[in-house]
């Protein structure tokens, strides 16, 4: 093989690898792109079942209740258009409050309820995600970003 041919082969392999990455990412994105849901999305399209998603909105006033086991919390997430009941067994974040923004990670149950395995709330006033800020203004909440570092 001449150097020129080898260079061409390598270039083609490189292009092939990039195309492979693109295809791989697109096929995974098709399943995972709809990762975030607002209650209105669920009311319109039905709950996505069998996979881990995020549900975001405001904690409805007066909806937070603790179960007798001391670790399970029930509350409702609303976006002003629809409401989803959520159960969460775990330590709630420090800034989890009624009428405040929350993003729950977990799975929908067939009955339309949501079982959260993780709650993300804002860390403090300075680090509030813009979409939660929007939700706090009463406008429709769209999207989440993780609060991890």
């Amino acid at each position: 093989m001449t150097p020129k041919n080898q260079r061409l082969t390598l270039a083609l392999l490189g292009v092939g690898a990039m195309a492979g990455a693109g295809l791989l990412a697109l096929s995974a994105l098709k399943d995972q792109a709809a990762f975030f849901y607002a209650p209105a999305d669920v009311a319109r399209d039905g709950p996505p079942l069998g996979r881990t998603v995020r549900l975001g909105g405001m904690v409805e006033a007066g909806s937070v209740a603790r179960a007798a086991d001391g670790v399970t919390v029930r509350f409702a997430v609303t976006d002003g258009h629809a409401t989803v009941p959520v159960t969460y067994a775990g330590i709630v974040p420090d800034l989890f409050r009624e009428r405040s923004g929350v993003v729950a990670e977990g799975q929908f149950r067939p009955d339309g309820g949501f079982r959260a395995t993780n709650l993300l709330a804002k860390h403090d006033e300075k680090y509030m995600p813009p979409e939660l800020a929007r939700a706090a203004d009463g406008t429709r909440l769209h999207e989440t970003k993780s609060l991890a570092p």
Partner: protein
Amino acid sequence: MTAEFGLAALWLAAALAVLQAAAAALGLARAREDVAAVTRPAAVAQGALACLAMAALVAAFANSDMSVRVVAENSHSAKPMLYKLAGAWGNHEGSMLLWVAILGAAGTAVALFERRLDPRTLAATVGAQGLIAVGFYAFLLFSSNPFDRLVPAPREGLGLNPLLQDPGLAFHPPTLYAGYVGLSVAFSFAVGALVTGRVDRAFARAMRPWVLGAWVLLTLGITAGSYWAYYELGWGGWWFWDPVENASLMPWLAATALLHSVTVLAVRDGLRAWTVMLAVVAFSMSMLGTFLVRSGILTSVHAFAVDPARGSFILALLLLYVGGALALFALRIGTVRAGTTFDPVSREAGLVANNLLLSVILGVVLIGTLYPVGAAAFGVQLSVGPPFFDRAAGPVALLLVAVLAVGPLLRWRRDEAGAVLGRLAAPIAAASLTAAGLFAFNGFGLSLLPFLGLSAAAGLAVASVLPLTGRRLARVPLMTWGMAVSHLGVAVALAGMACDAAFTRETLVAAQVGQPARVGPWSVTLDGIAPRIGDNWSAVEARLTAVRGEGTPLTLRPQQRFFSDPVTTTSESAIATRLDGQLYTVLGRPDGQGRWQLRLWWKPFVTLIWAGGVLIALGGALSLAGRALRDRRARAAA
């Protein structure tokens, strides 16, 4: 005065960076050696001044000089001294100043210590480093001045985000930045070589130690960041596929590929154009990461300020530098002749496979990170999370591990497939035995990725030490030791990740005092709750006693900490490290009936993740030391 001194140093450094770039350009264009000779002294002075400016900012933080805006907005006089000092880079302006100081210091190091590059390429390289610096000085001075004064000065500052008040702040950002920004040297080398057309073995040998050094620091920085997030956030996770984490992973992937392709260029004079391209890509990823993190389009503890003007400024710099380098590549790569050829079964081919797979992972992470940002620009809001990255990058990573096991066992230039299979007998046996053992103990109870991960880790661990066997160990060059240790580190980290995914046990209880809870093999009892007072916080602290079997009881003290400046609560986890894993405890809230929430994890062998990261970096350091020693001997002999 300190602030004005810092600002003056910054302006002067910016002027010197302009001189540095202009002298290199003029000197090379007019073939005037006396003009080009100005480049290196200018780079040294520029780097020293940038570091002085950084020192001035640290001094302002140490003295709690509240008349400096960033100090007032991000510090507090009651903070412990360590967090005052490290807090200098715990904000947007300070962290960008640290970025520029490291950029200047890297240029200084090249100007002082680079001896192998021919004078013209060296002048072009140092000039390119100056050109990069000019843009970032402009960014600092025009949109993120760290030395802005506040008139009148407030009596007290607003304080630092308590999540950042941790010893990790002193170590993680500077190390990560040194690696991240250190890659600028590889970028400048590539630009320099494209300008003079000298892409050859000497170029690769000169560039390799710089790439290695940056890569070692980047590896350490990422490892430290992962451990910090693990114990500070109290979720028990060690990697979240957060865009900010991806911003540091992408340069690492590119740098890892570059490290291997530059070896092919240095040893066999192959992969010339590809290596130059990777050097450009690696630092482009660093700049992209800076844009993602510092522009405020992402939200995390790393994104300190949301200011669209800053985002546009960095985006413009990014497009200018990356676009400029790519244009130079397109114009000049035709003058670089194709390198030597090699067989499809050879060390070179193995390294090409490594590079292709690393590029695929880089592409997947890049798409997953940028897709939501791009979609947002068109008004479509979506979010890409861990399921995407696990699914798209996981299988490619396993394939890469297989290549990693085979590659070092291949000979340069040409090898026999049959002989290679023979050399692979021991690793394949180790992987199969591990797989059989896992199956015998767990049946189908183990999910696929951890199962494959543990088996692959066992095979890789054996394969990585094979290059050392059958040789007098004292005579094995340090570079070979470095390769073996780094590859073993990958196996160790992979084993830790798989163990964490497969065997972690978690318990959540509302505990009464004296009532034990079980997590894995441990029995954990809440002995009591007591208040605690720190320098700038108060806390409720649980005293937990943990016993495993008949062993000695351990005491753990997880806390809920309350900070007043700014008003925040943080959970301080308590972790007990044993040889075979970590017991991780977090204190939650009282339930109003005398019980306290406790979240407990038993994580077998989780520490291997970070031990592996340290081993990977150690291997790089060994290799670097080996090369330095060899150079010294060669110079002594000459």
